[in-house]
């Protein structure tokens, strides 16, 4: 059986009256890329900060590598790499010095450190910028430096808190590939984000958190199975009357329809050959149609369904 | 008026330094104006500390006589304290009437009757030593003239009490602006500069930040009305600050300004404009708040030391003053000194000072406008 790397048990964290984490539990196994998803202000960063023992919490326990995590448990800290959403590098130090500095807080041996720093540089592709000060770096490069500083000491567990905010697609891909690479080498990764595609792309296991509660957890497929929708059918069709629409809604497995004079959207839950049945009906009524496509649910659908569609603008 | 309103909102958020500076200034001037009161006598009165070791009627008479013209400070027993007070010229002269003074005086011995305790070899000590010598000479001479000791002392006192008529070239008539009160206006430029640069500049900087500027430029507001509204906001700020000083001044001086004090008020208003102009000019450079802070201190402290705000102009070296002419505060202080009678008053020269200050204001505003214009066209090309 795989080893449990992180075990959060019934964590409760309050900010005054506000409950930031409400009996939050989590278990992360070795070798996973664990995605922590949630809207802004849902408690992702709070959970990470508690995990790192930066924040005090009201109830619950946190174990990393099977041991209780405390602020003075330096042996555990040694095995963790942290990349926070805010870039944490010294403006006064060059790229190389920054990586060397942070690496040096974990590794005392000079030769070993040098090797680690150089690997981190190659890994993040910062070779051409070693003598630059962070101010001179573009957003993407700065994020890469931020990551290099967090992973240079080859931790067994890497925690990334929204590392790709405001990064161009090239840099983002580079970062994501890097994370997959690290994972292949055996590193366990905790990844928070609200970019569904990213999470879908790299995470093997996902938990969705909202208002401090874990509301869903599982693999991608497990999550998708959790929601009602299994298929969304799109048909470009003009002049649909309301009784035809009613007939479509009455078809088996269809639980909702939308029509806006140009496009028909049919939401289905379970069943097979749903598309054919809809098209069959249209053919019978002699209604012509344009493009037709069918979509399987994405993580985005899962996310929106479980967290609700209302706009979130609270600060994270 | 959208720009104006926003300006005021931003201003409100950045008002803290202004409040700090103004309240401190007012508190300190309230304390200082009172303190300065005893420095200021038409006739120089020295603070003199007498250690009477002799403790005879004769030595008592001497002390009493000195007390007629000067302030007698009770003996300071702590030697360190005495040094401190002499060092900072809180006590101008300290001396011991040595034991055996009256006997020696009666015997006609003149030397070594007193011992002065010096930190500085200063005017005050020289004046007092001269006085002591003169007193002894007079007593001795009267004795030589045949008078008994007590009579000789009385006569010497009388002879030394006769004071020469002194006229003062600078007219000391009541012109409504005492030297005492002028202190308030003396320190004002430092505060005006600090307030303007620490508050107005950041506000203007955030209003003129490149991305905000670009966004404003894209909007339908006319460039001129934008400038006018910003200008209006700045002017209101400047005038408000100045009015606070104006009104506080009325309280400190204990009644509405009179006579020359009005000119001093005008002077301070012109300087408020100069300070605002400097703040506007600085806001046009692309610098961090930290750097601005630094420049603020450099300018305000530098000007204060060079132009006679913290240290009187009459105390500064020739070279310094010659260089200070290129700074507006020099003319401000010069006018202020003339107005309060510290320097020879001449209405025409005061006017010249005020005009030069106004010219400084214009000379600072001009390049500011120019830089603004250049920067604007720069953004337009972007």
């Amino acid at each position, binding site marked *: 059986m795989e080893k449990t790397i992180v075990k959060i048990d019934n964590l409760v964290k309050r900010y005054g009256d506000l409950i930031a984490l409400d009996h939050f539990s989590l278990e992360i196994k070795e070798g996973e890329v664990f995605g922590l998803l949630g809207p802004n202000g849902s408690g992702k960063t709070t959970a990470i900060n508690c995990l790192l023992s930066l924040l005090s919490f009201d109830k619950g326990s946190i174990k990393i590598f099977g041991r209780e995590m405390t602020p*003075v448990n330096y042996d555990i800290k040694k095995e963790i790499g942290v990349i926070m959403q805010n870039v944490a590098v010294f403006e006064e130090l060059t790229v190389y010095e920054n990586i060397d500095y942070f690496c040096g807080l974990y590794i005392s041996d000079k030769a070993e450190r040098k090797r680690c720093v150089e690997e981190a540089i190659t890994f993040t592709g910062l070779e051409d910028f070693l003598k630059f000060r962070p101010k001179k770096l573009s957003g993407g490069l700065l994020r890469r430096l931020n990551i290099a500083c967090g992973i240079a000491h080859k931790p067994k567990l890497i925690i990334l808190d929204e590392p790709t905010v405001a990064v161009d697609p090239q840099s983002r891909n580079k970062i994501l590939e890097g994370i997959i690479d690290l994972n292949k080498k055996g590193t366990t990764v905790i990844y928070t984000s609200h970019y569904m595609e990213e999470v879908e792309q790299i995470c093997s296991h996902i938990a969705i958190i909202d208002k401090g509660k874990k509301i869903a957890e599982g693999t991608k497929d497990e999550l998708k199975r959790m929601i009602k929708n299994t298929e969304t059918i799109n048909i470009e069709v003009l002049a649909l009357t309301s009784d035809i629409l009613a007939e479509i809604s009455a078809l088996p497995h269809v639980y909702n329809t939308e029509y806006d004079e140009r496009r028909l959207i049919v939401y289905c839950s379970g069943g097979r050959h749903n598309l054919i049945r809809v098209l069959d009906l249209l053919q019978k009524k002699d209604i012509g149609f344009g493009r037709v496509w069918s979509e399987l649910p994405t993580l985005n659908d899962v996310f929106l369904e479980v967290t609700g569609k209302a706009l979130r603008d609270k600060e994270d | 008026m959208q720009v104006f309103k926003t300006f005021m909102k931003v201003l409100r958020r950045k008002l*803290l330094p202004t409040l700090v500076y103004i309240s401190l200034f007012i508190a300190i001037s309230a*304390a200082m104006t009172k303190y300065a009161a005893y420095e200021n006598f038409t006739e120089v009165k020295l603070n003199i500390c007498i250690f009477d070791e002799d403790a005879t009627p004769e030595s008592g008479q001497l002390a009493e006589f000195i007390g007629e013209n000067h302030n007698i400070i009770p003996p300071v027993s702590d030697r360190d304290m005495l*040094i401190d*007070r002499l060092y900072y010229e809180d006590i101008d002269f300290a001396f011991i009437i040595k034991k055996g003074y009256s006997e020696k005086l009666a015997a006609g011995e003149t*030397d070594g009757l007193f011992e002065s305790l010096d930190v500085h070899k200063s005017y005050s000590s020289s004046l007092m030593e001269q006085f002591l*010598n003169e007193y002894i000479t007079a007593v001795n001479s009267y004795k030589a*003239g045949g008078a008994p000791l007590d009579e000789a002392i009385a006569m010497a006192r009388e002879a030394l009490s006769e004071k020469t008529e002194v006229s003062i070239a600078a007219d000391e008539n009541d012109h409504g602006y005492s030297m005492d009160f002028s202190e308030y206006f003396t320190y004002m430029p430092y505060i005006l500069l600090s307030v303007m640069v620490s508050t107005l500049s950041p506000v203007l900087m955030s209003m003129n930040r490149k991305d905000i500027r670009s966004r404003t430029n894209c909007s339908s507001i006319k460039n001129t009305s934008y400038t006018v509204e910003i200008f209006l906001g700045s002017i209101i700020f400047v005038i408000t600050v100045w009015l606070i000083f104006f009104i506080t001044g009325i309280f400190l001086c204990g009644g509405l300004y009179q006579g020359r004090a009005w000119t001093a008020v005008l002077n301070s208003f012109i300087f408020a404009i100069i300070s605002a102009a400097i703040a506007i000019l600085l806001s046009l450079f692309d610098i961090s708040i930290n750097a601005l802070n630094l420049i603020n*201190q450099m300018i305000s402290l530098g000007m204060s030391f060079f132009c006679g705000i913290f240290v009187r102009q009459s105390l500064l070296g020739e070279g310094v003053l010659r260089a200070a002419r290129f700074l507006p505060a020099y003319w401000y202080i010069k006018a202020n000194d003339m107005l309060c009678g510290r320097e020879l008053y001449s209405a025409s020269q005061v006017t010249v000072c005020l005009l030069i200050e106004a010219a400084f204001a214009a000379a600072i505003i001009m390049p500011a406008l120019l830089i603004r214009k250049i920067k604007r066209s720069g953004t337009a090309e972007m």
Partner: protein
Amino acid sequence: MFLHDLKYNIICIIRSRDLIFWLILFPIALGTCFKVAFGSIYKNVTEFHTVPAAIVETEENAPFRSFIQTVEDSGVISAEYTDEEYAVELLKAGKVSGIIYSGEELTLTVSGTGIAGSTLRSLIDNYKMREKMITDTVKNAPEKTEAVIKALSEETSACISTPLTKGNTDNFTPYFYNLIAMVAMYGCLIGRQTAMNSLPNYSAIGIRRSCSAIRSSAEISSGLIAGFAAEALCMTVCVTFIEFVLKVDLGGDLLLIYLTAILGGILGVALGFCVCSSFRIADGILTASILLLCFMSGLMINNMKMIVAEKAPWFNMINPPALISDSLYCLSIYSDLSRYAEKTISIAVITAVLCIIGVVITRRRRYASL
């Protein structure tokens, strides 16, 4: 690990441009200001030198002339005989301190109140006194005239002067003491940076360092020691600049001056560290409060310290810049070093207390909120 952290902490402080500005360039600029402004004030103003006077003779007055000659010889005044118009010009231009009109009646015109005017007045008073005495004697007891004249013309030196101190008595030097104290206080900025970089509730770097494998005690102490070292360097630069470039005599033993300055700098760093780890303080507020404390110790107005000593003596005991400038002053003025030692010990004690408070605060390991 500690040394590694220390090394980079020092590099960071030295490379930080703001700190270099405030701690090295600003004091150099201000020191130069002081030097230029006050370079000769003490010699010109406080220290006695000959009083220049213009003498306008409306009538021939030989006795007065000879009297003036004697005083001139003794170096009290320097007289220039001239006509009235020119004399007024000289007075307006500040070339002379007063005009003595010598005629039937002796009168004096001065440009304002001042000690120089008083000196001239007392000279004339003395002359009048002698004149009166002689005429009186001639009138009342002509046989004693000779004795009186002899008594009058006798050299009296009734006063022996004892200098109270061997130190530098230039009372503008405290401006430089206060400048040194100011640089020490700007150590607060370094202390602030140390606090910011160590504490997870202040900065992202603080988070990263708190999550790292370095012990928090090592992290904080290396930050503080780096701050002390950098500040010590700045203090050394400042004192060296004042003593050797501006050539200001700070008085006292140079080694002790350096020591005091460095100790003061460490106090500044500790103060900044302690205050900034307890509260979030904006840069502007911090520098403004530093300047206010410096103002209270006399950075802007020299005798401020005396005013404070009079009105609130306790404040001078705890105001850090006042303590620092005071200990430098004591070092220069008192031959006995006990008061200097007293001041330095209180600096050291305050520093230690601040460090302990700061460390206790920062050693809190978990935060209620970030």
